[in-house]
């Protein structure tokens, strides 16, 4: 593995990593308290870690954190779940059938480069509730990485495995269940993990435009109210939630593909 997790690393390396984070915090604190002005970039008005920490404690103590979090989580969950189901289904169809490839891939290729932010006005028009439009934005953000990785996974399943399974009597449905989906699973998991990340940053974009609750809304509201430490709290919350959900997904992926652990252990 290219990047080892904190757990596998020796105590010396783990210590180094923690020290690196602490050093970044210290530099940030020094820069903001000294109102460091480098010309191109200035720390004159940025809050420091101590202020941000205080703001974070205040947010936790207030009754606001839970509604913000649940609102954001519910939106991501809804949009992402729809993208996962539909994305894998579309990806498998495109990867398996030439007809689906010809019919579905061209429109998807046109829609794919459009950033989620560009969808916002249309989403507001398309969905009667702002909740619906925000969920749609998270959906569209997660969909493409999932579809593309699923297609890649399905197309790269070893043809000899497919031929062999046919010789052993596998029909269409059994082929999909026994060979194609497990064979494409590692790639699908990668797509789901990337989709989770894009889903989060699309959600934040959507919440900045409309909403009463949500981490993105909280961040944007703090900016308009000039509560600068709160902005950084919001940013860090987004980072933590995105990182946490991606890690959770990778774990679930490893759990779902036990044979790959075997291969790696050797």
């Amino acid at each position, binding site marked *: 593995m290219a990047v080892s997790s904190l757990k596998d690393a020796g105590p010396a390396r783990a210590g180094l990593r923690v020290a690196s984070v602490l050093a970044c915090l210290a530099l940030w604190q020094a820069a903001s308290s000294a109102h460091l002005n480098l010309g191109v970039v200035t720390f004159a008005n940025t809050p420091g870690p101590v202020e941000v920490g205080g703001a974070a404690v205040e947010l936790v103590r207030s009754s606001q954190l839970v509604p913000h979090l649940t609102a954001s989580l519910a939106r991501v969950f809804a949009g992402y779940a729809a993208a996962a189901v539909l994305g894998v289904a579309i990806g498998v169809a495109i990867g*398996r*059938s*030439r007809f689906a490839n010809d019919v579905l891939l061209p429109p998807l290729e046109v829609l794919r480069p459009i950033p989620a932010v560009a969808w916002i006005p249309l989403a507001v028009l398309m969905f009667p509730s702002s909740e619906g439009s925000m969920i749609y934005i998270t959906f569209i953000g997660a969909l493409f990485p999932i579809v593309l990785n699923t297609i890649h996974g399905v197309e*790269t399943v*070893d*043809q*000899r*495995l*497919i*031929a*062999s*399974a*046919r*010789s*052993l*009597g*596998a*029909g*269409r449905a*059994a*082929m999909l269940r*026994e*060979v194609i989906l*497990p*064979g494409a*699973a590692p790639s699908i998991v990668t797509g789901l993990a990337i989709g989770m990340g894009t889903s989060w940053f699309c959600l934040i974009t959507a919440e900045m435009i409309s909403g009463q609750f949500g981490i993105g809304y909280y961040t944007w509201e703090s900016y308009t109210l000039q509560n600068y430490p709160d902005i950084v709290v919001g940013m860090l919350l987004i980072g933590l939630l995105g990182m946490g959900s991606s890690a959770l997904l990778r774990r679930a992926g490893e759990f779902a*593909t*036990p*044979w790959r652990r*075997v*291969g790696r252990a*050797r």
Partner: protein
Amino acid sequence: MSVVEAMPQGRVEIDEVSIMLGRGAQSFEAVRKLSLSIAPGEFVAILGPSGCGKSTLLGALAGHIPVGGGRLLVDQAPVRGPDPSRGIVFQHHTLLPWRTALENVAFGPKMRGEPRAQRLASAAEMLATVGLSGFENRYPAELSGGMQQRVEIARVLINRPRLLLMDEPFGALDAQTRLMMQSLLLDIWSRVRTTVVFVTHDIDEALFLADRVLIMTPRPGRTRRLTEASFPRPRDVQLTTEPEFARLKRQCLDLLRPDADDQPLPRLTPLGLAAAGEPERRRSY
């Protein structure tokens, strides 16, 4: 019902068979008007230079490559697509990496809808037949190359095929393991009787295993000679040092000696032209 029993069927008629590979301007004749009759329960080896179409012929018997001309009959029925009654073993194993050895062997019965307990029991019995008791719950990645091929053979034999097709199944193994696997195959074949067509480029292997050896010409593949290897069975490795064996081997060597103007050809596979993992044409099954 025992896994080990006689298989009465497995007559193969290869009648003036020609096979084209590739598309458009790149297409070529891999096999030309080749004929061969194989009796039920017979062990036939096919020898030939690389790219001569011996694996192509095997792929046609398996139903993965369509025949361009002539007829291909197994027990009087024309070959139309792959079928569990014609099992194929490739040079490199094609076990499902996400299934244990036992589950891999039980794959055929599962496709027939056999209940789980029953299919796992017969799979365990078949694994024992190939000498792999105790490895039921290992994943393919945890097994050695020889063991993987044994699981592969067990997975094919559990379907009681009329025809066992093998494409250089021991070609990727080290010399020691290969000898061991050859003896093991003969031992299994003496108990699970089925017709075997065994493609190899190893003359010793062909003569040691087979009743008859078909020697093919370079592309397009035709019959050069059909040699009887009528050594008594059971055979053991000592056979390969006997004068009669050496005489036959010399004959085969002469027949396989490349002409000065022969170009070495790329290896063909039982799935057609394509390199591993790359389909010759997109199929949707």
